[in-house]
């Protein structure tokens, strides 16, 4: 039936037959198997951690449980054209492939601009129809959880060119929590900050009241670093307390999009930071430090606070606990500066796209790989332990070998909820192996005092980072970035200069160089003049085209 000699129309007819049979089978997972097997070229990034932790037990990138699965279930042979070892290299090699006109059959890019460029150059296959037709109900359900903005990011001129890649949670890239040295707070008799003023008091106390008890005034309250934003040592959280969203696009009262970085609320927050700088509560050298350098203060016990995300204890905070087991960190919600509820800013959660080369004969393979992934990892009859996280070794993340992977949105937060429930009820039956592994570690610390599991308990446990996020999720207190597509034409040319200007001005104001009002006004006016106005217009053009 599946003859190789004719190919073409005959093959398509056979495929159609298979499909009809498959869709007739109710409830069963329908895969289209290609026989004879087809080739699929891909490229991938295998950083050092992968090389160390995942490539073992006879598995290599070219041959492992996933490649075998894909071949046996789908009849697809994966061939890796090249393998890179770091992000920089990956981007450059993809650029070179693009320039040479020779991209792999399925390609994963983190830079959405490239997707837009490839789409307009006609290099990509149309995935819309293919997705609708081949995506399994489970796939559609989980991908739908990311919101329709995710798919918007991959749509150009009405054509879906890229399947979005959502990794875990957008809340991990920004700083919605304030991590505080809890043992210092107890020592100085301070309690949970319910208002911004109380938080400022705590930060000042950390700097002035010698919390490490060594008789020297060698501590600061808050750390930050020269690039200002991110999921560790970031400052978005502080701004959010003043209802400022300095890094994203938000809708104003008239329904138009504005850039948070030039709004007057941002100035209020900057003045607040300036006050911290003057009182010594903010590390005076933050402006020249890389993030790695800033962390030294946290690890070395010289700083007591940083704005970050739920995962921070895993790195670097655990090192401070390692040194001295009495060190305790606790995460708190961002307190409000004026009593009105705080919304925390968040990106769209799309961290990349899967695209298919235009002339590749089987674009549906991408969707099939997605189906395979969801089925084996999250589905009803999943084989989580074989294909995702084998038990025992937390670092042996087999899922990283999958050609196409998607993590459930807010994965870690969901695990935390399960773990907290299980701690109360003792029932761990509903957890998958990864969650169970985390649960065991939390229990290890909480019940048996295993210090090396402190970081897991502080991330996933009842008093930990993700637990502190619960009020946000319950009340949907998120301000999500509304601009979710590739940069506009003027953004491509000017955005880097404008954000540089923003960083420069912000740091100047924080450090008190010049009059803050004048400095900020000058910044806003320059921003608009040097392309900002044009960009705001383009962004709104795109935004209104969505509503139609």
């Amino acid at each position, binding site marked *: 039936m599946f003859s190789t000699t004719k190919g073409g129309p005959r093959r398509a007819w056979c495929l159609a037959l298979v499909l009809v049979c498959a869709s007739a089978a109710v409830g069963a997972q329908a895969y289209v198997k290609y026989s004879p097997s087809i080739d699929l070229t891909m490229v991938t990034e295998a950083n050092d951690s992968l090389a160390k932790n995942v490539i073992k037990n006879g598995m290599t990138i070219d041959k492992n449980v996933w490649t075998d699965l894909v071949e046996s279930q789908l009849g697809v042979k994966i061939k890796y054209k*090249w393998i890179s070892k770091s992000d920089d290299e990956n981007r450059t090699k993809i650029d070179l492939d693009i320039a040479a006109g020779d991209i792999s059959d399925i390609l994963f890019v983190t830079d959405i601009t490239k997707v837009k460029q490839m789409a307009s150059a006609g290099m990509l296959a149309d995935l819309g129809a293919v997705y609708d037709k081949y995506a399994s109900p489970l796939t559609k359900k989980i991908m739908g959880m990311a919101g329709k903005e995710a798919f918007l990011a991959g749509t150009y001129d009405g054509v879906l060119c890229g399947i979005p890649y959502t990794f*875990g949670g957008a809340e991990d890239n920004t700083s919605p929590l304030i991590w505080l040295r809890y043992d210092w707070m107890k020592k100085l008799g301070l309690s949970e900050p319910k208002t911004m003023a109380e938080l400022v008091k705590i930060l000042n106390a950390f700097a002035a009241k010698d919390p490490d008890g060594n008789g020297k005034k060698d501590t600061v309250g808050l750390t930050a670093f020269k690039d200002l934003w991110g999921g560790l040592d970031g400052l978005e959280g502080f701004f959010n307390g003043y209802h400022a969203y300095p890094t994203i696009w938000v809708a104003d009262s008239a329904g138009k999009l504005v850039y948070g970085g030039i709004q007057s609320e941002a100035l209020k927050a900057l003045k607040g930071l300036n006050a911290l700088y003057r009182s010594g509560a903010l590390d005076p050298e933050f402006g020249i430090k890389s993030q790695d350098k800033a962390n030294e203060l946290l690890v*070395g016990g010289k700083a007591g606070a940083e704005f970050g995300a739920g995962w921070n204890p895993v790195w670097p905070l655990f090192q401070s606990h390692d040194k001295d087991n009495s060190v305790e960190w606790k995460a708190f919600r961002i307190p409000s500066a004026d009593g009105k509820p705080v919304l925390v800013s968040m990106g769209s959660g799309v961290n990349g796209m899967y695209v298919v080369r235009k002339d590749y004969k089987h674009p549906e393979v991408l969707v099939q790989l997605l189906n395979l992934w969801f089925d084996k990892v999250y589905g009803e009859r999943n084989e989580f332990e074989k294909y995702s996280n084998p038990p025992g070794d937390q670092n042996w993340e087999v899922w990283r070998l999958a050609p196409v992977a998607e993590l459930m949105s807010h994965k870690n937060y969901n695990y935390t909820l399960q773990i907290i429930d299980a701690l109360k009820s003792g029932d761990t039956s509903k957890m998958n192996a990864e969650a169970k592994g985390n649960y065991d570690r939390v229990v290890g610390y909480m019940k048996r005092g295993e210090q090396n599991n402190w970081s897991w308990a502080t991330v996933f446990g009842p008093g930990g980072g993700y637990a502190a996020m619960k009020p946000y999720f319950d009340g949907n207190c998120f301000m999500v970035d509304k601009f979710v597509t590739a940069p506009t034409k003027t953004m491509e040319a000017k955005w880097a200069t404008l954000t540089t200007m923003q960083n420069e001005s912000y740091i100047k104001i924080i450090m008190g160089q010049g009059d803050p009002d004048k400095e900020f006004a000058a910044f806003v006016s320059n921003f608009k003049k040097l392309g900002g106005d044009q960009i705001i217009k383009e962004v709104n053009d795109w935004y209104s085209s969505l509503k139609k």
Partner: protein
Amino acid sequence: MHMPKRKRVSWFRIINGAFLIAVAIVCLLPFVYIAAVSFSSSTAASAGMVGLWPVGFNVNSYKYVAGRADFWRAAYVSTMRVLVGLPVTMVLTILMAYPLSRETASFRSRTFYVWFLFITMLFSGGLIPGYMVVRSLGLLNSFWVLILPVAVQAFNIVLLLNFFRQLPKELDEAARLDGAGHWRILWTIYVPTTTPALATLALFTFLTHWNSWFDGLIFMSRPENYPLQSYLRTILIDPVVLQSSGDWQVMASISDRTVKAAQILIAALPIMAVYPFLQKYFVKGIVIGSVKG
């Protein structure tokens, strides 16, 4: 002949010596620091607590590196690269410097060649054209891509041709009277008498090969084929990049400063060993003197 007199110890010699030793120590300090970090505990290193002495002494990072096959494979690639690349480049440099050191009178195309070489020092097409050329020559992912594109170094050639020019004309004339052609003159006279210059160039070439990381990164399709510095570059990643992909578990395992320090130190050892090895060629111009006599 110069008669060595019994001198009283010269003040100048003492001060000079002391000054230079002090400078040398300042230059060594960062290596001492890196070494100290490599022998310290990971936490102390991340807390910035390590100065010039290890804190929490241990050899874990070295044990770890010793077990990383990737690291040693990359070291092997780099070694092969030097063993092949050094002779290739040196020979090419010598072959090109000699004709260019001739007078224009005896070599009329000299000016043309000089400009030809000179332009290569200044103008470059950039990454993409370079990559396209390598690709069309079929050199992607091959060992020779580490050798051939960098075999011709205009800077070295210009340096050597100047050293060649410094040799006295009488040597040339004497050899020519003996009926020697260019090849013989080059290999029997020029090369042996410019050993300091050649040693310098050998050093530079060795260093270029040992330290270059970009070509290995771009032109190799598999990390197994990376030379050492390319490999190191990929582990010195800025954690911020990883963070934005939410990959905090990876960050935790990559950020170990002590391991990075150990790898850097090991990679620097050949460099430290090479110079003393080449020292014996930097001899005061005895050779010129003997030829003259």
